[in-house]
């Protein structure tokens, strides 16, 4: 607790990450981009690499929560439905600017938007796929991408008919709960993502979808918005939400938003510090990871991934 100019008892840390992102936004020069295989589909992983670094940097997590795997899983799933997307990773794209916008730094957001729009137009993207709920909202509502269709990855997989093969008989029945992100759910006046993730989970034959106490448009927030603060109050909200998952006796708590994964994962990890007092018996993971783990086949081979790898990448990888 510290006194800030916004009032007592609130800490609004601007972590190093945000300083880096904001200073990055000042550089608007568009680099030369060599496209290996051109496609009208583009996949934008968001800032997942930053979160892995940030989580380890701030000692919130030593590797249980894996953000980088969202990228690998998404690419694996997209290949499973026959798409070889252009990957708009952060080596030349900037952050989508959601956090900057909602923290009130509109000028930073506008610079990021200008830059990203320029690149998306330059690459001739027709369908813009993102695995991040905040990115979905921001690109769809706050950007002006005329002629580019912005979809959340679950929507895209659902409409392309992703099929999950039958699981082995040895696989035990699991109960899966889904956390509806605020940004892609009730904040979207058009195309909210409610049904598609649920439909995809139902395609896993040994998974039973259970609803939390509040779901769809009533779903409670994961507790932290736009990475603005982390204190006992926000932890309390996160704990409430995770208690709901405990109440329905879920084995998996799936999220469709890397931020939810961050905060749930953080609390999950915190409650594991005391041995034998594990409060949450379920796993928290992104829905793309959940689906990709149930798909046969290799994990994707990107430019920075081992070509022969059969196992999913280790957590904490710097994308």
């Amino acid at each position, binding site marked *: 607790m510290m006194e800030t*100019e*916004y*009032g*007592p*008892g*609130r800490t*609004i840390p*601007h972590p190093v990450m*945000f*300083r880096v992102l*904001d200073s990055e936004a000042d550089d608007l020069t568009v680099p030369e981009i060599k496209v290996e295989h051109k496609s009208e589909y583009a996949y934008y992983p968001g800032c997942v690499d930053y979160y892995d670094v940030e989580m380890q940097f701030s000692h919130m997590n030593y590797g249980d929560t894996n953000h980088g795997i969202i990228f690998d899983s998404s690419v694996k799933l997209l290949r499973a439905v026959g798409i070889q997307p252009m990957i708009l990773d952060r080596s030349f794209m900037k952050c989508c600017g959601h956090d900057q*916008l*909602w*923290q*009130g*730094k*509109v*000028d*930073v957001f506008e610079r990021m938007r200008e830059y990203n729009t320029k690149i998306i137009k330059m690459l001739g993207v027709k369908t813009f796929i993102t695995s991040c709920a905040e990115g979905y909202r921001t690109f769809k509502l706050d950007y002006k991408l005329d002629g580019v269709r912005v979809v959340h990855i679950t929507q895209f997989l659902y409409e392309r008919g992703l099929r999950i093969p039958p699981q082995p008989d040895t696989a035990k029945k699991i109960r899966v709960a889904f956390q509806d992100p*605020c940004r892609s759910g*009730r*904040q979207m006046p058009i195309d909210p993502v409610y049904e598609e993730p649920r439909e995809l989970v139902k395609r896993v034959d040994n998974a039973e979808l259970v609803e939390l106490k509040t779901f769809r*448009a*009533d779903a*409670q*927030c994961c*507790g*932290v*918005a*736009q990475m*603005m603060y982390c204190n006992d*109050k*926000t932890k*309390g*909200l996160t704990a*409430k939400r995770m208690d709901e998952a405990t109440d329905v006796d879920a084995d998996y708590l799936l999220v469709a938003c890397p931020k939810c994964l961050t905060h749930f994962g953080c609390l999950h990890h915190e409650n594991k510090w005391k041995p034998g007092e594990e409060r949450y018996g379920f796993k928290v993971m992104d829905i793309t990871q959940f689906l990709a783990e149930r798909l046969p086949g290799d994990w994707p081979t990107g430019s920075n991934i081992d070509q022969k790898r059969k196992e999913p990448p280790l957590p904490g990888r710097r994308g």
Partner: protein
Amino acid sequence: MEIEHVKGKIMEGMPGFPRQYGPVRSDHQPGVPFFPQESARDFVLIFLLVAIMFFLSAVVTPFLGPARSPQISELIVPDWYLLFSWGLLKVADIFPQFTIGAGTPLKTEFSAAFWGDLLSGIPVIFLLILPFIDRGREARPAKSPVRSAFGIAFLIAWIFTASLYSIREVVAQRWQTPNGSPLIDDIAMKWFFVIPPVLVGLTSYIGLRRLGYQPMRKWLVPYVGGLTAIVAVQSAAILFMPGWLGPQVRPYIVQLVIFLAILLIPMAVASFAVFRLPESRARKWIVRVGVAGAIAFAIAYVALEYTGAANRLAMSWVLSVLEPSMNTLLLMPIFAVVTGYLGVRRPYSTYEYLLNECYQCGKCHTVCPVTKVEDDALGGLNLVYNTFKKQHDGVPLWTCLACDACSAVCPLDIQYSDYILEERSKVHARMAADGGSRE
């Protein structure tokens, strides 16, 4: 909120409070039924009033007097609140009069009386069908500008101009040119049915759209510019077209030019302002020039009317030019300046515009996740409402998660997160402007 704590306060199932909801409810419904209790009371009141009226008409017979007729007085007028209907009856002769089906039992005469009755009936018919046309739920004028503009325009047309037309004989007698002809002729009075309602409607529409954040320059430039062009062309025609000005007015052309200039210059400045200047400066200049024009007109009028008989005669002749064109020369400058101002004025601020809808049902407070963990909020602080009221020290604004749970349950669809977005950006802009370091 602890669920046990809430359960203790629930009135559901208690006497008078329903346990079931919805149209298929079968339990006891709270309140007093309409039939027979409410209807019995209403019938008692109705019969009592009817009895009183019968009693009064039987015992205290009012003296009605002889009916008015042209033999008794030349000018027949009804009570003031029926003047509009009388005016509509008088103006009905502009419609074509014909008879269909003559010589058959279905003979229908489309006479002036018929058209007049129809005109008087239109407002009533409109009021009857209004609930079926207007199915929207918006009640605020700024949210439904088309409907409001129509309403105001029709009010002007049906009440004001029709009432004025009903006493056209009085107008013709009272205001005359020095040579005895009526100052405002019948044609100008008839046009008065059309021009002011249209101007009022357009002005209301532009002003109301502007209140709802719409930039109205696209409408303003043709509207204000068009009015200015009409007045300019007509002024030029009056001055330079041979045969327009009578020989009696020729000597007073200097005074006439002064009045035309007073009418035309504010309009011209207003059209330039809405066309070229940025909105804040346009607003200031339109106000200045409008006030200056009104003052100048008053000074010029007083200077001529109350300084000797010769000047008063001059004023009369100037008015004999201006008044027959009152629909254009006198009305349009006023509307041009007023519309110019309404079209560039500041719109509602976001919170004012949104808060005016809020009726404090408190649903947002119930669902707000922050209120479940914040000590302040548990003590009765309503995050959403207090932020709207600006009764906060910045805490609600920055504690908000922008999760939009409040907007999802809001019965009036108030987008609280949009408001949060705007206010937060303002804080950062202010910090930067004060020389504070930008993040």
